[in-house]
Protein backbone atom coordinates (compact mmCIF):
# COMPACT_ATOMS: atom_id res chain seq x y z
CA UNK A 1 0.00 0.00 0.00
CA UNK A 2 1.69 3.18 -1.16
CA UNK A 3 0.75 6.83 -1.50
CA UNK A 4 0.89 8.22 -5.03
CA UNK A 5 0.38 11.68 -6.50
CA UNK A 6 -0.96 11.76 -10.04
CA UNK A 7 -0.96 14.80 -12.32
CA UNK A 8 -3.20 14.88 -15.40
CA UNK A 9 -2.94 13.89 -18.17
CA UNK A 10 -2.18 10.53 -16.56
CA UNK A 11 0.18 8.29 -18.52
CA UNK A 12 -0.76 4.65 -18.99
CA UNK A 13 2.56 3.54 -17.48
CA UNK A 14 1.69 5.34 -14.22
CA UNK A 15 -1.60 3.44 -14.03
CA UNK A 16 0.26 0.14 -14.35
CA UNK A 17 2.27 1.01 -11.23
CA UNK A 18 -0.87 1.21 -9.08
CA UNK A 19 -2.08 -1.75 -7.02
CA UNK A 20 -5.30 -2.29 -5.08
CA UNK A 21 -5.12 -0.69 -1.65
CA UNK A 22 -2.85 2.16 -2.81
CA UNK A 23 -3.86 5.71 -1.92
CA UNK A 24 -3.87 8.28 -4.71
CA UNK A 25 -4.19 12.09 -4.86
CA UNK A 26 -5.00 13.70 -8.22
CA UNK A 27 -4.06 17.19 -9.43
CA UNK A 28 -5.20 18.61 -12.75
CA UNK A 29 -8.40 18.21 -14.75
CA UNK A 30 -11.26 15.90 -13.80
CA UNK A 31 -14.54 15.27 -15.62
CA UNK A 32 -17.83 14.06 -14.10
CA UNK A 33 -20.31 11.71 -15.75
CA UNK A 34 -23.32 9.82 -14.40
CA UNK A 35 -25.80 7.45 -16.05
CA UNK A 36 -27.42 9.91 -18.44
CA UNK A 37 -24.06 11.28 -19.64
CA UNK A 38 -22.70 7.75 -20.17
CA UNK A 39 -25.78 6.84 -22.19
CA UNK A 40 -25.38 9.93 -24.33
CA UNK A 41 -21.67 9.28 -24.88
CA UNK A 42 -22.48 5.83 -26.24
CA UNK A 43 -25.25 7.27 -28.39
CA UNK A 44 -22.78 9.82 -29.83
CA UNK A 45 -20.29 7.03 -30.56
CA UNK A 46 -22.99 5.01 -32.30
CA UNK A 47 -24.02 7.95 -34.42
CA UNK A 48 -20.40 8.94 -35.09
CA UNK A 49 -20.92 12.34 -33.50
CA UNK A 50 -18.03 14.01 -31.73
CA UNK A 51 -18.42 14.29 -27.97
CA UNK A 52 -18.02 17.83 -26.59
CA UNK A 53 -15.77 16.57 -23.80
CA UNK A 54 -12.58 14.57 -23.85
CA UNK A 55 -11.43 12.08 -21.21
CA UNK A 56 -8.05 11.31 -22.76
CA UNK A 57 -5.72 10.65 -19.80
CA UNK A 58 -8.22 12.17 -17.41
CA UNK A 59 -10.09 10.82 -14.41
CA UNK A 60 -13.81 10.23 -14.93
CA UNK A 61 -15.66 10.99 -11.72
CA UNK A 62 -19.05 9.39 -10.98
CA UNK A 63 -20.56 12.45 -9.36
CA UNK A 64 -23.67 14.60 -9.45
CA UNK A 65 -22.45 17.72 -7.69
CA UNK A 66 -24.39 20.26 -5.71
CA UNK A 67 -23.57 23.49 -7.52
CA UNK A 68 -24.45 27.16 -7.24
CA UNK A 69 -24.24 29.88 -9.86
CA UNK A 70 -23.01 33.15 -8.40
CA UNK A 71 -22.57 36.13 -10.70
CA UNK A 72 -22.58 33.94 -13.82
CA UNK A 73 -19.88 31.64 -12.41
CA UNK A 74 -20.46 28.11 -11.18
CA UNK A 75 -19.12 27.02 -7.82
CA UNK A 76 -19.16 23.54 -6.34
CA UNK A 77 -20.55 23.17 -2.82
CA UNK A 78 -20.59 19.39 -2.48
CA UNK A 79 -19.27 16.76 -4.87
CA UNK A 80 -19.13 13.29 -3.39
CA UNK A 81 -19.13 10.16 -5.53
CA UNK A 82 -22.29 8.38 -6.61
CA UNK A 83 -22.84 4.61 -6.87
CA UNK A 84 -20.55 3.41 -9.67
CA UNK A 85 -22.47 0.20 -10.41
CA UNK A 86 -25.12 2.22 -12.25
CA UNK A 87 -22.48 3.03 -14.89
CA UNK A 88 -21.43 -0.62 -15.28
CA UNK A 89 -23.41 -1.25 -18.51
CA UNK A 90 -21.57 1.59 -20.30
CA UNK A 91 -18.15 1.99 -18.69
CA UNK A 92 -16.18 -0.54 -20.76
CA UNK A 93 -17.14 1.22 -24.00
CA UNK A 94 -16.31 4.62 -22.53
CA UNK A 95 -12.89 3.41 -21.35
CA UNK A 96 -12.24 1.85 -24.75
CA UNK A 97 -13.27 4.86 -26.83
CA UNK A 98 -12.44 7.83 -24.63
CA UNK A 99 -9.05 6.89 -23.20
CA UNK A 100 -10.13 7.18 -19.57
CA UNK A 101 -7.25 6.25 -17.25
CA UNK A 102 -8.88 6.51 -13.85
CA UNK A 103 -12.53 6.00 -12.93
CA UNK A 104 -13.51 7.45 -9.55
CA UNK A 105 -16.67 6.54 -7.68
CA UNK A 106 -17.96 4.48 -4.82
CA UNK A 107 -19.17 0.96 -4.12
CA UNK A 108 -17.11 -0.85 -6.78
CA UNK A 109 -17.74 -1.93 -10.38
CA UNK A 110 -18.44 -5.19 -12.17
CA UNK A 111 -16.80 -7.72 -14.41
CA UNK A 112 -17.13 -5.84 -17.71
CA UNK A 113 -15.34 -2.79 -16.32
CA UNK A 114 -12.68 -4.94 -14.66
CA UNK A 115 -11.90 -6.60 -17.99
CA UNK A 116 -11.82 -3.25 -19.82
CA UNK A 117 -9.39 -1.85 -17.24
CA UNK A 118 -7.10 -4.80 -17.69
CA UNK A 119 -7.29 -4.59 -21.45
CA UNK A 120 -6.92 -0.83 -21.95
CA UNK A 121 -4.82 0.13 -18.89
CA UNK A 122 -7.13 1.90 -16.48
CA UNK A 123 -7.90 1.73 -12.76
CA UNK A 124 -10.89 2.31 -10.49
CA UNK A 125 -10.53 4.37 -7.32
CA UNK A 126 -12.91 4.99 -4.46
CA UNK A 127 -13.48 8.37 -2.93
CA UNK A 128 -15.17 8.21 0.48
CA UNK A 129 -18.92 8.17 -0.19
CA UNK A 130 -20.71 11.18 1.21
CA UNK A 131 -17.49 13.08 1.95
CA UNK A 132 -18.78 15.69 -0.44
CA UNK A 133 -17.47 18.91 1.08
CA UNK A 134 -14.04 17.37 1.50
CA UNK A 135 -14.18 16.64 -2.25
CA UNK A 136 -15.40 20.17 -3.01
CA UNK A 137 -12.50 21.62 -1.00
CA UNK A 138 -10.10 20.08 -3.50
CA UNK A 139 -12.01 21.42 -6.53
CA UNK A 140 -10.44 24.75 -7.33
CA UNK A 141 -12.48 25.79 -10.32
CA UNK A 142 -15.27 24.81 -12.68
CA UNK A 143 -13.60 24.91 -16.09
CA UNK A 144 -16.73 24.08 -18.02
CA UNK A 145 -20.00 22.22 -18.18
CA UNK A 146 -21.65 20.29 -21.02
CA UNK A 147 -25.06 18.72 -21.45
CA UNK A 148 -26.72 20.90 -18.82
CA UNK A 149 -30.04 19.91 -20.39
CA UNK A 150 -29.68 16.65 -18.43
CA UNK A 151 -30.04 18.63 -15.17
CA UNK A 152 -27.19 19.76 -12.89
CA UNK A 153 -26.58 16.35 -11.27
CA UNK A 154 -26.39 14.54 -14.64
CA UNK A 155 -24.46 17.18 -16.60
CA UNK A 156 -20.79 16.70 -17.48
CA UNK A 157 -18.67 19.01 -15.30
CA UNK A 158 -15.03 19.79 -15.97
CA UNK A 159 -13.20 20.57 -12.73
CA UNK A 160 -9.72 21.80 -11.92
CA UNK A 161 -8.63 19.83 -8.85
CA UNK A 162 -5.68 19.91 -6.47
CA UNK A 163 -4.63 16.94 -4.29
CA UNK A 164 -8.04 15.37 -4.83
CA UNK A 165 -8.24 12.46 -2.42
CA UNK A 166 -7.73 10.25 -0.55
CA UNK A 167 -8.62 7.85 -3.36
CA UNK A 168 -8.25 4.13 -2.69
CA UNK A 169 -7.42 1.96 -5.69
CA UNK A 170 -10.10 -0.76 -5.72
CA UNK A 171 -9.56 -2.23 -9.22
CA UNK A 172 -6.09 -2.13 -10.74
CA UNK A 173 -4.89 -2.62 -14.30
CA UNK A 174 -4.03 -6.25 -13.49
CA UNK A 175 -7.76 -6.75 -12.93
CA UNK A 176 -7.50 -7.30 -9.19
CA UNK A 177 -10.49 -6.05 -7.17
CA UNK A 178 -10.36 -4.97 -3.54
CA UNK A 179 -14.15 -5.18 -3.27
CA UNK A 180 -14.11 -8.77 -4.48
CA UNK A 181 -11.56 -9.68 -1.82
CA UNK A 182 -13.50 -7.96 0.97
CA UNK A 183 -16.76 -9.45 -0.27
CA UNK A 184 -15.35 -12.99 -0.33
CA UNK A 185 -14.16 -12.56 3.24
CA UNK A 186 -17.53 -11.16 4.33
CA UNK A 187 -19.28 -14.16 2.73
CA UNK A 188 -17.06 -16.50 4.75
CA UNK A 189 -17.75 -14.54 7.95
CA UNK A 190 -21.47 -14.66 7.21
CA UNK A 191 -21.43 -18.42 6.63
CA UNK A 192 -19.54 -18.93 9.89
CA UNK A 193 -22.03 -16.80 11.83
CA UNK A 194 -25.05 -18.55 10.36
CA UNK A 195 -23.60 -21.91 11.37
CA UNK A 196 -22.78 -20.89 14.91
CA UNK A 197 -25.35 -21.94 17.45
CA UNK A 198 -24.53 -18.79 19.45
CA UNK A 199 -26.01 -16.71 16.65
CA UNK A 200 -29.46 -18.17 17.36
Amino acid sequence: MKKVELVTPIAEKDIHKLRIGDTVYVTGTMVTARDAAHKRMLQFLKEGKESPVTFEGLPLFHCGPLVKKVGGKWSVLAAGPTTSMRMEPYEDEVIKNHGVRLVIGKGGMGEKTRQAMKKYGAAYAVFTGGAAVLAAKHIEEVKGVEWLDLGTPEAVWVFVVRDFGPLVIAIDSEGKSLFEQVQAKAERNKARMLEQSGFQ
Partner: protein
Amino acid sequence: MSLEVLENAVITLLKLAVVKLPEDVKSALEKAYRAERSPIGKAQLEAILDNIKIAEETGTPMCQDTGLTSFYLEAGSRFEGLERVEGILRRAIRRATVEVPLRPNAVDPFTQENTNDNTGRQVPYMHWRIVDGDFLEITTVPNGGGSENMSALKMMSADEGTYGLKKFVIENVVEAGGLPCPPTVIGLGVGGGPNIAMDLAKLALLKPLDKPEADKTVARLERELYEAVNRTGVGPMGLGGDSTTLGVKIEYAHRHPASYPVAVAFHCWAARRATARIHSNGDVEYLTHKV
Protein backbone atom coordinates in the same frame (compact mmCIF):
# COMPACT_ATOMS: atom_id res chain seq x y z
CA MET B 1 -48.40 32.00 15.61
CA SER B 2 -47.62 33.47 12.23
CA LEU B 3 -47.20 31.03 9.38
CA GLU B 4 -44.00 32.78 8.42
CA VAL B 5 -42.46 31.64 11.73
CA LEU B 6 -43.31 28.05 10.83
CA GLU B 7 -41.97 28.35 7.28
CA ASN B 8 -38.69 29.88 8.46
CA ALA B 9 -38.33 27.26 11.21
CA VAL B 10 -38.69 24.49 8.62
CA ILE B 11 -36.02 26.06 6.40
CA THR B 12 -33.67 26.33 9.39
CA LEU B 13 -34.47 22.69 10.24
CA LEU B 14 -33.72 21.50 6.68
CA LYS B 15 -30.42 23.37 6.72
CA LEU B 16 -29.41 22.07 10.18
CA ALA B 17 -30.21 18.53 9.06
CA VAL B 18 -27.90 18.56 6.04
CA VAL B 19 -25.08 20.65 7.53
CA LYS B 20 -24.62 19.15 11.00
CA LEU B 21 -24.97 15.63 12.36
CA PRO B 22 -26.68 15.05 15.70
CA GLU B 23 -24.21 14.51 18.57
CA ASP B 24 -25.06 10.80 18.99
CA VAL B 25 -24.12 10.04 15.37
CA LYS B 26 -20.96 12.11 15.57
CA SER B 27 -19.73 10.35 18.70
CA ALA B 28 -20.56 6.95 17.18
CA LEU B 29 -18.36 7.85 14.18
CA GLU B 30 -15.55 9.05 16.44
CA LYS B 31 -15.78 5.82 18.43
CA ALA B 32 -15.66 3.79 15.20
CA TYR B 33 -12.57 5.74 14.07
CA ARG B 34 -10.76 5.02 17.34
CA ALA B 35 -11.62 1.31 17.22
CA GLU B 36 -10.94 0.65 13.52
CA ARG B 37 -7.98 -1.69 12.93
CA SER B 38 -7.88 -1.66 9.12
CA PRO B 39 -5.66 1.18 7.83
CA ILE B 40 -7.85 1.65 4.74
CA GLY B 41 -10.99 1.63 6.90
CA LYS B 42 -9.46 4.11 9.31
CA ALA B 43 -8.51 6.45 6.45
CA GLN B 44 -12.13 6.36 5.25
CA LEU B 45 -13.40 7.26 8.73
CA GLU B 46 -10.82 10.04 8.94
CA ALA B 47 -12.09 11.48 5.64
CA ILE B 48 -15.64 11.26 7.03
CA LEU B 49 -14.71 13.12 10.23
CA ASP B 50 -12.79 15.78 8.22
CA ASN B 51 -15.81 16.15 5.99
CA ILE B 52 -18.17 16.63 8.94
CA LYS B 53 -15.93 19.36 10.32
CA ILE B 54 -15.69 21.25 7.01
CA ALA B 55 -19.47 21.05 6.52
CA GLU B 56 -20.07 22.54 9.97
CA GLU B 57 -17.47 25.26 9.55
CA THR B 58 -18.67 26.34 6.13
CA GLY B 59 -22.39 25.76 6.64
CA THR B 60 -22.46 23.52 3.57
CA PRO B 61 -24.40 20.25 3.14
CA MET B 62 -22.08 17.40 4.20
CA CYS B 63 -23.18 15.25 1.24
CA GLN B 64 -24.37 16.35 -2.19
CA ASP B 65 -27.25 13.89 -1.95
CA THR B 66 -29.67 15.71 0.32
CA GLY B 67 -32.29 13.02 -0.14
CA LEU B 68 -35.94 12.79 -1.09
CA THR B 69 -37.52 14.85 1.66
CA SER B 70 -39.68 13.18 4.30
CA PHE B 71 -41.28 14.88 7.26
CA TYR B 72 -42.34 13.02 10.39
CA LEU B 73 -44.91 15.15 12.15
CA GLU B 74 -46.30 14.97 15.66
CA ALA B 75 -49.23 17.31 15.62
CA GLY B 76 -50.55 18.58 18.92
CA SER B 77 -54.35 18.46 18.82
CA ARG B 78 -54.49 22.06 20.03
CA PHE B 79 -51.94 23.43 17.54
CA GLU B 80 -53.69 25.98 15.34
CA GLY B 81 -53.52 26.00 11.56
CA LEU B 82 -52.76 22.30 11.01
CA GLU B 83 -54.69 22.40 7.75
CA ARG B 84 -52.10 24.81 6.35
CA VAL B 85 -49.00 22.88 7.40
CA GLU B 86 -48.73 20.78 4.22
CA GLY B 87 -48.72 23.86 2.04
CA ILE B 88 -46.12 25.52 4.26
CA LEU B 89 -43.86 22.48 4.17
CA ARG B 90 -43.99 22.42 0.36
CA ARG B 91 -43.17 26.12 0.21
CA ALA B 92 -40.35 25.70 2.71
CA ILE B 93 -38.70 22.86 0.80
CA ARG B 94 -38.87 24.90 -2.42
CA ARG B 95 -37.19 27.84 -0.72
CA ALA B 96 -34.63 25.61 1.02
CA THR B 97 -33.72 24.06 -2.35
CA VAL B 98 -32.43 27.50 -3.39
CA GLU B 99 -31.35 28.94 -0.05
CA VAL B 100 -29.47 26.05 1.61
CA PRO B 101 -29.13 24.79 -1.20
CA LEU B 102 -30.47 21.24 -1.54
CA ARG B 103 -29.92 19.13 -4.62
CA PRO B 104 -33.12 18.86 -6.67
CA ASN B 105 -34.07 15.21 -6.20
CA ALA B 106 -37.72 14.81 -7.23
CA VAL B 107 -37.99 13.05 -10.59
CA ASP B 108 -41.14 11.92 -12.44
CA PRO B 109 -40.87 8.11 -12.66
CA PHE B 110 -42.31 7.98 -16.19
CA THR B 111 -40.99 11.08 -17.96
CA GLN B 112 -37.73 11.22 -15.90
CA GLU B 113 -38.26 14.95 -15.60
CA ASN B 114 -36.78 16.62 -12.54
CA THR B 115 -39.11 19.20 -10.97
CA ASN B 116 -35.97 21.05 -9.83
CA ASP B 117 -37.57 22.19 -6.58
CA ASN B 118 -37.76 18.99 -4.51
CA THR B 119 -41.53 18.86 -4.58
CA GLY B 120 -43.70 16.56 -6.63
CA ARG B 121 -46.42 13.98 -6.40
CA GLN B 122 -46.36 12.70 -2.76
CA VAL B 123 -43.10 14.62 -2.27
CA PRO B 124 -42.26 15.74 0.35
CA TYR B 125 -43.62 12.64 2.04
CA MET B 126 -45.46 13.39 5.28
CA HIS B 127 -45.99 10.97 8.13
CA TRP B 128 -48.56 12.29 10.61
CA ARG B 129 -49.32 11.38 14.19
CA ILE B 130 -51.74 13.25 16.39
CA VAL B 131 -50.67 13.83 19.99
CA ASP B 132 -51.89 15.84 22.95
CA GLY B 133 -50.49 19.38 23.12
CA ASP B 134 -50.31 22.75 21.43
CA PHE B 135 -47.15 22.28 19.44
CA LEU B 136 -46.05 20.79 16.14
CA GLU B 137 -42.95 18.60 16.16
CA ILE B 138 -41.24 18.14 12.80
CA THR B 139 -38.47 15.66 12.09
CA THR B 140 -36.59 15.33 8.82
CA VAL B 141 -34.10 12.55 8.00
CA PRO B 142 -32.24 13.24 4.73
CA ASN B 143 -30.83 9.97 3.39
CA GLY B 144 -28.73 9.25 0.31
CA GLY B 145 -30.27 7.36 -2.59
CA GLY B 146 -27.44 4.81 -2.47
CA SER B 147 -28.50 3.64 0.97
CA GLU B 148 -32.23 3.87 0.22
CA ASN B 149 -31.62 1.47 -2.67
CA MET B 150 -30.43 -1.22 -0.25
CA SER B 151 -33.76 -1.38 1.61
CA ALA B 152 -35.32 -4.83 1.68
CA LEU B 153 -38.52 -6.49 2.76
CA LYS B 154 -39.16 -10.15 3.35
CA MET B 155 -42.31 -11.97 4.25
CA MET B 156 -40.63 -14.68 6.31
CA SER B 157 -42.17 -17.94 7.22
CA ALA B 158 -43.53 -17.57 10.77
CA ASP B 159 -41.44 -20.46 12.09
CA GLU B 160 -38.12 -18.83 11.10
CA GLY B 161 -38.33 -16.60 14.20
CA THR B 162 -35.42 -14.49 15.43
CA TYR B 163 -32.83 -16.71 13.71
CA GLY B 164 -34.50 -15.92 10.37
CA LEU B 165 -34.56 -12.27 11.27
CA LYS B 166 -30.84 -12.15 12.03
CA LYS B 167 -30.06 -14.12 8.91
CA PHE B 168 -32.09 -11.64 6.86
CA VAL B 169 -30.14 -8.67 8.27
CA ILE B 170 -26.68 -10.24 7.84
CA GLU B 171 -27.44 -11.41 4.31
CA ASN B 172 -28.59 -7.95 3.31
CA VAL B 173 -25.60 -6.24 4.92
CA VAL B 174 -23.14 -8.53 3.10
CA GLU B 175 -24.97 -8.24 -0.20
CA ALA B 176 -25.11 -4.44 0.10
CA GLY B 177 -21.34 -4.24 0.73
CA GLY B 178 -20.10 -0.69 0.28
CA LEU B 179 -23.19 0.55 -1.56
CA PRO B 180 -25.09 2.10 1.38
CA CYS B 181 -21.93 4.05 2.46
CA PRO B 182 -21.06 2.16 5.65
CA PRO B 183 -20.73 2.47 8.58
CA THR B 184 -24.50 2.72 8.33
CA VAL B 185 -27.30 3.02 10.82
CA ILE B 186 -29.65 0.08 10.32
CA GLY B 187 -33.37 0.32 10.97
CA LEU B 188 -35.23 -2.94 11.35
CA GLY B 189 -39.00 -3.23 11.23
CA VAL B 190 -40.46 -6.45 12.56
CA GLY B 191 -44.06 -7.64 12.36
CA GLY B 192 -47.26 -5.95 11.23
CA GLY B 193 -47.93 -6.28 7.50
CA PRO B 194 -45.49 -5.53 4.67
CA ASN B 195 -46.23 -1.80 4.58
CA ILE B 196 -46.12 -1.59 8.38
CA ALA B 197 -42.77 -3.39 8.58
CA MET B 198 -41.10 -0.96 6.16
CA ASP B 199 -42.69 1.99 7.91
CA LEU B 200 -41.35 0.70 11.23
CA ALA B 201 -37.86 0.20 9.78
CA LYS B 202 -37.89 3.86 8.75
CA LEU B 203 -39.25 4.97 12.13
CA ALA B 204 -36.47 3.00 13.84
CA LEU B 205 -33.97 5.29 12.06
CA LEU B 206 -35.42 8.26 13.96
CA LYS B 207 -34.18 6.89 17.28
CA PRO B 208 -31.00 8.31 18.79
CA LEU B 209 -28.07 5.89 18.97
CA ASP B 210 -27.08 6.68 22.54
CA LYS B 211 -30.39 5.84 24.25
CA PRO B 212 -30.63 2.19 25.23
CA GLU B 213 -33.90 0.48 24.44
CA ALA B 214 -36.23 -0.01 27.43
CA ASP B 215 -37.64 -3.28 26.09
CA LYS B 216 -35.09 -5.92 27.11
CA THR B 217 -35.76 -8.33 24.24
CA VAL B 218 -35.38 -5.54 21.70
CA ALA B 219 -32.27 -4.14 23.43
CA ARG B 220 -30.59 -7.56 23.38
CA LEU B 221 -31.46 -8.16 19.74
CA GLU B 222 -30.16 -4.73 18.76
CA ARG B 223 -26.88 -5.41 20.58
CA GLU B 224 -26.46 -8.88 19.02
CA LEU B 225 -27.18 -7.57 15.54
CA TYR B 226 -24.80 -4.64 16.00
CA GLU B 227 -22.00 -7.04 16.91
CA ALA B 228 -22.83 -9.53 14.17
CA VAL B 229 -22.95 -6.86 11.45
CA ASN B 230 -19.58 -5.52 12.58
CA ARG B 231 -18.12 -9.02 12.43
CA THR B 232 -18.87 -9.30 8.69
CA GLY B 233 -15.73 -7.31 7.86
CA VAL B 234 -17.48 -5.23 5.15
CA GLY B 235 -16.04 -2.14 6.83
CA PRO B 236 -16.12 1.57 6.00
CA MET B 237 -17.23 2.06 2.37
CA GLY B 238 -17.07 -1.71 1.85
CA LEU B 239 -13.26 -1.53 1.70
CA GLY B 240 -12.87 -3.87 4.66
CA GLY B 241 -12.65 -3.25 8.40
CA ASP B 242 -14.31 -3.47 11.78
CA SER B 243 -16.89 -0.75 11.38
CA THR B 244 -19.86 -1.70 9.21
CA THR B 245 -22.67 -0.25 11.35
CA LEU B 246 -22.93 2.53 13.93
CA GLY B 247 -26.07 1.06 15.43
CA VAL B 248 -29.02 -1.24 14.77
CA LYS B 249 -32.43 0.07 15.82
CA ILE B 250 -35.64 -1.94 15.94
CA GLU B 251 -39.33 -1.07 15.92
CA TYR B 252 -41.91 -3.84 16.05
CA ALA B 253 -45.61 -4.55 15.78
CA HIS B 254 -47.81 -7.56 16.42
CA ARG B 255 -48.09 -9.78 13.37
CA HIS B 256 -50.68 -11.92 11.64
CA PRO B 257 -50.36 -15.60 12.76
CA ALA B 258 -49.42 -16.63 9.23
CA SER B 259 -46.96 -13.80 8.50
CA TYR B 260 -43.60 -12.65 9.81
CA PRO B 261 -42.70 -9.53 7.83
CA VAL B 262 -39.23 -8.07 8.32
CA ALA B 263 -37.92 -4.90 6.70
CA VAL B 264 -34.48 -3.39 6.75
CA ALA B 265 -33.65 0.24 5.98
CA PHE B 266 -30.15 1.65 5.81
CA HIS B 267 -29.02 5.12 6.63
CA CYS B 268 -25.60 6.09 5.25
CA TRP B 269 -22.90 7.20 7.74
CA ALA B 270 -24.29 10.70 7.19
CA ALA B 271 -27.22 9.69 9.38
CA ARG B 272 -28.77 13.12 9.23
CA ARG B 273 -31.71 13.80 11.52
CA ALA B 274 -33.16 17.02 12.82
CA THR B 275 -36.22 17.80 14.93
CA ALA B 276 -37.90 21.11 15.72
CA ARG B 277 -40.80 21.75 18.05
CA ILE B 278 -42.88 24.76 17.13
CA HIS B 279 -45.20 25.99 19.87
CA SER B 280 -48.50 27.74 19.26
CA ASN B 281 -47.07 30.90 20.87
CA GLY B 282 -44.38 31.07 18.17
CA ASP B 283 -41.48 29.66 20.23
CA VAL B 284 -39.24 27.30 18.28
CA GLU B 285 -37.01 24.66 19.91
CA TYR B 286 -34.49 22.60 17.96
CA LEU B 287 -34.34 19.30 19.82
CA THR B 288 -31.46 17.60 18.00
CA HIS B 289 -29.15 20.57 17.48
CA LYS B 290 -27.76 23.52 19.39
CA VAL B 291 -28.66 26.66 17.50
